[in-house]
């Protein structure tokens, strides 16, 4: 197949994707910023002065910073030792713990909020009452409807981000770096502090920032836990402004959103350009021998400690969701006579509107994951296999998209994609697919990029020299080698899209209601048990898919 002009199809594909990112991500976000300054057509800070002089908004900002800040600190304090124990020591049941923590990452955060609401309700929370009786306290020790309640739930749902990030870095670290310290005379603990911790610092900071952004831009948790306690955050406030429905409401929402976006961008900047520069992990040797630290006499006590942690943070909340879904009267114990019922599961599995929403969620998540993976593959190729100037730009855009709070993305899309600029996909499923892609492609991208790094370019060059064109090479050499990562990446995009709440809540119409929105509506307005049954269904699915994923990637969960 000799051609005169060596037209390379890869450039066409790359161009299309870059155009897509420009139109659906860069432009809307820029427009959002523009709108916040030019709400009336002329430059004005009127919106800013209105929003930021309002006492209430300041308390929202404060709440957001405080809760996200503490979630970040606690999250890392939990995640680092856990990652170290699971990755580097002879802790019992390492694989199981790892599975639990990674599964938590895939569970919708609002499900956690629902569970903790039941457990730590100031009056009737199960755990509250249990602890009160156990310790003979005069009143219930915890109140979930407080800023610390919010911090607690945010922490328990976002520490897995840090856990995964830090684990990944630890796996990549050459274990002989630690061994060199041991043979130099340092004890395991001394080695942890003088070698492991400093080497991990860049990833720890990156993990911390990830948790911070995720917690600051979370909507589900603060709205379920904060609202009853009159505790507002920037995200819930933005939602309130949007739901006012007026043009001014939208402007006010935009102005607040710009604040969130500024925080996110700042954090992104710090993690990529300040911390990223100090990333030592790439300077590792080639030894891959797993180095297991013997915990010695601490092995059993530490295993017990980790088990208690897993029990409280993962198992009890999940179990609570299931129990709630079978309970007729939530005021009584599930095991009280006649209190057990399957009717909520029946509702969850048969009601037309729920099935419709589930279908919508499946469709949009499948599309987002599939298109997203195509984008990720091509962009990872661009990044890792070509020398084009600016090859890192799409990667950067994908990172920015993911770092942008969900509310901000949704707002930006609403303002630009509802006909004002000739594109009207508002009220359709497309706008959701686009939003999902922008928000969740990063995980797919990271997975594929790391897979690319592990396949030597010479393998592909060998195919090229044998006469294979670009598509042919991808198909014959590259894809077969990285297929587990592609599957993993696909699921990593699919899962959060499937139960997505924040963006869907702003973007849905009666025909495109999603599972997340449905669940949220049931939880807030109708029946917590039905919501729990739905959440239980999602949990089962998450765990099932996680097991499949584990098999497909041969136990190497490459997130």
């Amino acid at each position, binding site marked *: 197949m000799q051609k005169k002009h060596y037209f390379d199809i890869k450039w066409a594909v790359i161009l299309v994707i870059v155009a897509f990112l420009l139109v659906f991500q860069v432009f809307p976000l820029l427009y959002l910023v523009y709108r916040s300054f030019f709400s009336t057509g002329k430059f004005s800070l009127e919106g800013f002065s209105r929003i930021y002089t309002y006492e209430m908004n300041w308390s929202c900002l404060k709440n957001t910073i405080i809760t996200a800040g503490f979630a970040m600190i606690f999250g890392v304090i939990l995640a680092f030792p856990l990652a170290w124990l699971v990755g580097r020591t002879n802790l019992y049941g390492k694989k199981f713990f790892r599975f639990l923590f990674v599964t938590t990452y895939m569970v919708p955060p609002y499900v956690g909020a629902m569970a903790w609401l039941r457990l730590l309700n100031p009056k009737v929370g199960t755990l509250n009452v249990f602890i009160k009786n156990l310790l003979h306290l005069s009143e219930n020790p915890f109140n979930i409807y407080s800023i610390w309640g919010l911090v607690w739930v945010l922490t328990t749902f976002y520490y897995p981000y840090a856990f995964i990030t830090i684990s990944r870095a630890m796996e990549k670290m050459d274990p002989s770096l630690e061994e*060199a310290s041991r043979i*130099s005379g340092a004890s395991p603990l001394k080695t942890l502090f003088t070698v492991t911790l400093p080497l991990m610092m860049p990833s720890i900071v990156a993990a911390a920032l990830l948790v911070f952004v995720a917690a600051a831009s979370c909507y589900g948790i603060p709205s379920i836990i904060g609202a009853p306690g009159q505790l507002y955050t920037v995200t819930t406030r933005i939602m309130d402004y949007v739901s006012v429905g007026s043009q001014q409401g939208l402007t006010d929402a935009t102005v607040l959103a710009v604040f969130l976006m500024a925080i996110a961008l700042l954090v992104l900047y710090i993690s990529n350009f300040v911390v990223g520069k100090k990333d030592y992990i790439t300077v590792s*040797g080639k030894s891959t021998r797993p180095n297991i630290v013997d915990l010695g006499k601490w092995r059993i006590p530490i295993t017990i400690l980790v088990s208690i942690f897993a029990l409280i943070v993962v198992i009890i909340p999940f179990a609570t969701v299931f129990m709630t879904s079978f309970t007729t009267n939530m005021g009584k114990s599930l095991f009280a006579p006649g209190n057990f019922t399957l009717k909520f599961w029946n509702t969850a599995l048969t009601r037309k509107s729920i099935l419709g929403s589930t279908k919508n969620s499946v469709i949009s998540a499948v599309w987002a994951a599939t298109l997203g993976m195509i984008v990720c593959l091509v962009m990872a190729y661009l990044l890792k296999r070509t020398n084009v100037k600016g090859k890192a730009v799409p990667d950067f855009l994908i990172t920015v998209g993911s770092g942008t709070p969900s509310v901000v993305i949704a707002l930006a899309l609403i303002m630009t994609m509802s006909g004002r600029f000739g594109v009207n996909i508002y009220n359709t499923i497309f706008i959701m697919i686009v939003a999902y892609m922008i928000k969740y492609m990063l995980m797919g991208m990271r997975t594929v990029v790391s897979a690319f790094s592990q396949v030597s370019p010479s393998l592909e060059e060998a195919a090229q020299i044998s006469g294979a064109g670009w598509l042919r090479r991808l198909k014959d050499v590259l894809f077969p080698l990285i297929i587990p990562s592609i599957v993993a990446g696909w699921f990593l995009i699919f899962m959060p899209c499937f139960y997505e709440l924040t963006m869907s809540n702003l973007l849905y119409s009666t025909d495109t209601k999603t599972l997340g929105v449905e669940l949220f509506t049931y939880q807030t307005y109708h029946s917590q048990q039905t919501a729990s049954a739905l959440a239980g269904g999602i949990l089962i699915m998450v765990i099932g898919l996680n097991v499949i994923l584990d098999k497909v990637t041969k136990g190497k969960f490459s997130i």
Partner: protein
Amino acid sequence: MSVITIDHVTKSFGNVEVLKEFTQEFQDGEFITLLGPSGCGKTTMLRIIAGFEKPTTGEVRIDGKVVSSKDVFVPPEKREIGMVFQSYAVWPHMNVFDNVAYPLKIKRMPKNVIREKVEGILEVVHLSQYADRMPSQLSGGQQQRVALGRALVAEPKLLLLDEPLSNLDAKLRESMRYEIKEIQRKLGITVVYVTHDQIEAMTMSDRVYIINRGVIQQVGHPIEIYRHPANQFVADFVGKVNFIKGLAEAGRIRIKGIDQSVKYDGEMRGDVVLAIRPENIELTSAEGHLTGILSSMYYLGDVNDCRVEVGDTTLRVTADAHTYDTLRVGDKVGLIIDSFLVYPDDGNDDYNKILT
């Protein structure tokens, strides 16, 4: 200066036994090399001495003190050993000085002593002017010397080296070989050196251990191993060798498949394998011990690297360089065998395969 005693040590990972029954003593100030193909268990042995692996059975003693056994285990940091890792393991977040100073800091030596010692050792490894560099700014050879400096700075009595030269280019490798040997001589320390490179083993060691599949094949001085390899594996792994199958009788060995034989006054009878090193064969246009057809020649400058067909086996012959001018490919040549070794034929052809 220390004596290492390895007493009935075995090591299994799961149910795969990677080291079989190892009982040896490394003497004070000796340069010991563990030589064998990749995967034979060299690194595992080294890591058992260092304390990164526990032996499955048996016991390790350093200067008579048990460091690993069923009941006793001294962790690596308490063994006072210097070690250079195959991947160097130079800490990327510390500069050269801090890397090298680390073992002394752990010992809580005073600052000025640390400075003095580190500067001294940097001198030895030729890195004085790089003290402030970060590892990412160093070449592979320099990183390797940082690792060596770090291993030596605390003046360990025992130095373990795991293929320390394998990532270097040929020139650097040669000079580092020399330097390591010099340092060892100067400090008089015991060194256990792991490599799969026979030249490294030959040039540096007092004693070489040839290991294959977790079993020691032969122990001895390099010359002894080269001249008197204990079996076909050793003969083949150390240096080059031709194997020919034959039938030993009183006074001679018949070469199988052809009607030729060589003189033999040894004891062995029956199926045997002759091992002949290429440099122990001379070519002649006159009558030799064997006769063959010259099938190819490569002029290497100092020697003429030839292949000769004898029956259906091809023999490699390292001939005098001038024979390149007098012989032609296709000539019938005589082979004078200066010396050869005879092993009983165990029916295993693997060694021949490696050669061709």
